[in-house]
């Protein structure tokens, strides 16, 4: 019973913080309760949410993926070049970048497993690689004017109250549901938790650690490519410097969502709330109008500190024989 508490408590604390923040915002600005604001919150942070889905897998497996922002940036440029330059249909281009992203991630996972190198440095290399390749494709921002993009942007679900939930917000929610099912209701998910809990024991228990590692990073890069598609639809352009530093926002969202950076403990639902908290802070700053956006960074830093401290406390109380180091 204690372990279940230790696992769900950080997530519940995050949910509490979100509700509290939202209530505070709503008291100050009643307009925050409108479904338009809620729909925008989901739409504007759709790319970050999709990245957080992939990052949750990686962090649960005990790793980290610093390359997602660069893969996302590369995807937006590649899409623009394929659609505008080569005249491919967007759906064909989407398929190509998703498959490409998956293969790239599998390569990263394979390198981490067989070179026995820290994930941090391998994904850093992947980040340089993807960002460099994107800049080589084009250093300019390329607009995408294909009519299919217009059609996709027009698709939306109207919420009661007039808020329009766009296609990209729906894609993000779908990614969270699919990620959650894969993680919490399948054998693959269990293997990822086992790998993050203790990679050596997982291997001794007969879990194919190579395949699991490759899968985890494959999922992460595919999600990064999907985030690139979403960003491309959102801005209708491709730019190589898209998503610089966004990997840190994704990591912060996952950590604020209650997933331990040491791996093995956490879940998918928390990450969604982590993304929404970041979006909420930004929305509040926009509503306020007098604060600069750099307050977001300080607020996120403080939240990270509070949540990590909280996790430490919970871990210390729930596992008196806890591991060191």
């Amino acid at each position: 019973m204690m372990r279940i508490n230790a696992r769900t408590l950080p997530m519940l604390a995050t949910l509490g913080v979100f509700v509290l923040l939202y209530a505070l915002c709503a008291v100050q600005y009643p307009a925050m309760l409108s479904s338009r604001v809620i729909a925008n919150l989901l739409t504007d942070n759709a790319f970050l949410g999709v990245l957080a889905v992939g990052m949750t897998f990686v962090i649960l497996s005990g790793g980290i993926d610093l390359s997602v922002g660069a893969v996302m940036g590369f995807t937006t440029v590649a899409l623009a070049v394929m659609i505008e330059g080569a005249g491919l249909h967007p759906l064909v281009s989407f398929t190509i970048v998703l498959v490409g992203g998956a293969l790239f991630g599998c390569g990263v996972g394979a390198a981490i497993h067989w070179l026995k190198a820290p994930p941090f440095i391998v994904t850093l290399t992947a980040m340089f690689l993807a960002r460099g390749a994107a800049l080589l494709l084009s250093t300019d921002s390329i607009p995408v004017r294909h009519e299919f993009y217009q059609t996709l942007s027009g698709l939306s679900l109207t919420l009661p109250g007039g808020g329009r939930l766009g296609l990209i917000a729906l894609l993000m929610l779908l990614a969270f549901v699919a990620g959650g099912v894969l993680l919490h209701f399948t054998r693959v998910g269990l293997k990822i938790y086992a790998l993050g809990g203790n990679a050596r024991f997982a291997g001794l228990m007969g879990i194919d650690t190579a395949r699991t590692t490759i899968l985890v990073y494959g999922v992460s890069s595919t999600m990064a490519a999907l985030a690139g598609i979403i960003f491309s639809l959102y801005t209708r352009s491709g730019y190589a410097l898209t998503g610089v530093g966004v990997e840190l926002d994704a990591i912060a969202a996952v950590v604020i969502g209650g997933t331990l950076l040491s791996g093995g403990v956490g879940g998918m639902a928390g990450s969604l709330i982590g993304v929404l908290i970041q979006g909420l802070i930004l929305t509040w700053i926009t509503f306020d109008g007098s604060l600069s956006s750099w307050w977001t960074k300080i607020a996120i830093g403080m939240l990270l500190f509070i949540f990590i401290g909280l996790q430490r406390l919970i871990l210390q109380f729930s596992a008196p024989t806890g591991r060191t180091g």
Partner: protein
Amino acid sequence: MSGWFMAARSRLVLLALVLLANVLVAPGFLELRLVDGRLFGGIIDILNRGAPVMLLAVGMAPVIATRGIDLSVGAVMAIAGAVAAASVNAGHTWPVAVLAALGTGLACGLWNGVLVTIFRMQPIVATLILMVAGRGIAQMITQGRVLTFTDDGLAGVSSATLLGLPLPVLIALAAAIITGLLVRATALGLFVEAVGTSPRAARLAGVPTPGILIGVYVWSGLMAALAGLIAAADIRGADANNAGLWLELDAILAVVIGGTSLYGGRFSIGLSVLGAIILQGMRTCILRSGLPPELNLLLMALVIALVLVVQSPACQPALSHLTARLTKRRAA
């Protein structure tokens, strides 16, 4: 000492290759000219441009040797630059501004060290907090603008000349020598490596583990503040958004190229500085060659990939086999 040269040999070859590439790109690269009591030339340029990363690498190497990482150095550079610029603009003299900046660096390092040591956070997380929040703090100090200053004393940190060399080069070299002496002329280096190899064994052997851990982060913060001063003096202004942006990655790369193991327990200040010089040499070469500067990222990725493959435990048996055969052939 001979062991150091054995380890340095492959890096010196790499450096020679980079310098050779530079000479091929710009034939007058190796020339040194003395103008108005200051040396000018390609090599001086590389050392001068590379000084901030050299400083960061000097601070980063001991941190990585304890199996840690300091992601916040770029943000600390921005904060230190902002503090220095704000102090001279508030009417303080430049030595006060420099001291304030260095003090800020120490405080930032102490914060990281306390989080890692007392709160027992993973280093990557603990320093991530300052990396994310640090630029916000720097922007709070500069009020979101590029805070320019006219104080010649503070600008001199980057532009002054001493003994014919630009001051940043001397600062970086002095920092490297002082750090090298601190860790190798005393037992501190051994303590750092002991903590990185096994924190528990180190504690049982009587190594003051918490002090060593806090110490390496404080030192890294101090080096980052020095680098931040140079960066701010260079443009006569504190740019909270761009000062030291992504330099933490360069510093980590320099340390890795220098052969410091990412698994902790082994480090070299001298080789890390050499790594920083190699990186800057590559960058200068690409800039001078007229190739797109974006190639630099790809080249850096290739270099790390190479180092990773060579360092990986999977490749070690093959490599040692190869070296053994080569030595045998030479002996025969």
